[in-house]
């Protein structure tokens, strides 16, 4: 519970500084708040563990956290793949444009 609280503060601080974009912070806010709620409210946790047939109630917390983080890291690798694709195209485009400018410069020098 203490961890969730500190974590919430850390996320807020990073968003305030601008290191973490609002768009991506949304996930972490929801994550931190849910963890906080579940850690603080033992009866909710016990209810959930009975629902899922889990004997040890706090392991619901671990299961939940683990699943969410797995899904989110998968989402992030998709973003990374997409971005490296864009970066590749951008780098090529810049190099080709630079070459075109050089060619143009050569031509004007020769024609003078």
């Amino acid at each position, binding site marked *: 519970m203490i961890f969730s609280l500190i974590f919430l503060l850390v996320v807020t601080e990073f968003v305030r500084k601008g290191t973490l974009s609002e768009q991506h912070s949304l996930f972490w806010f929801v994550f931190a708040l849910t963890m906080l709620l579940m850690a603080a409210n033992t009866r909710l946790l016990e209810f959930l563990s009975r629902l899922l047939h889990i004997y040890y109630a706090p392991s619901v917390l671990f299961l939940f956290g683990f699943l969410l983080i797995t899904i989110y890291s998968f989402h992030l690798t998709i973003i990374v793949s997409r971005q*490296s694709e864009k970066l*590749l195209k951008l*780098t*090529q485009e*810049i*190099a*080709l444009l*630079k*070459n075109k400018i050089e*060619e143009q410069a050569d031509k004007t020098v020769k024609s003078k």
Partner: protein
Amino acid sequence: MRSTTLVIIPAYNEAATIGQVIKNIKRWCDADILVVNDGSTDGTSAAAREEKVAVIDLPCNLGIGGAMQTGYRYACQHGYEFAVQVDADGQHDPRFIEDLIHPLRAGKVDMVIGSRYIENRNYRGTLARRAGSWFFTFLLKLFTGQAIYDTTSGFRAINRQVLAEFARHYPPDYPEVEVIMQLLRRGYHIKEIPVVMYPRKGGHSSITMLKSVYYMFKVSLAMVIDCLR
């Protein structure tokens, strides 16, 4: 007058050999030459410019696939009929460039690969290398029903249709085998001709033991996925 053929040389830190490679190419054919400098940290770009050929400097290292695709896009934009890939380390003998382009001119095939293994010339390489090569030949045969023997050869020539295809899609790392698969499955024709290759004259091979394991897995996976497309 401008040639209809562009020789593309991808180069990453090859300052020691690039000048000689360009001189050799000029001696054996009159094609235009383009050096794609893949973010080298040595004098590769300057050494190439000294030989009065076109040079494209990539602002950061993209890897062989990204660099070659830059060259192919350049060739497309400038309207070349044929493009030939030649390595910057002196492994490829430019005497064979004309032999590579000849079948393309006849119009029967779309890509010509300079092969070390047919006609049993003196290139052998290590056992692991030949085993890997054999494995890719087997996979290609399995998936496409066609036998290509030197699947990892980077000494290859393509025509305008394939140029357009590569400008759109070219794998960023370890492209050689994947590309053969991509073309065969889309109905292009590939031919192999025998060439002689030399051990590299300078620089270092980028393939280490661990990397070759990754290479095998990555390329095999890419081939399976290409089948699912």
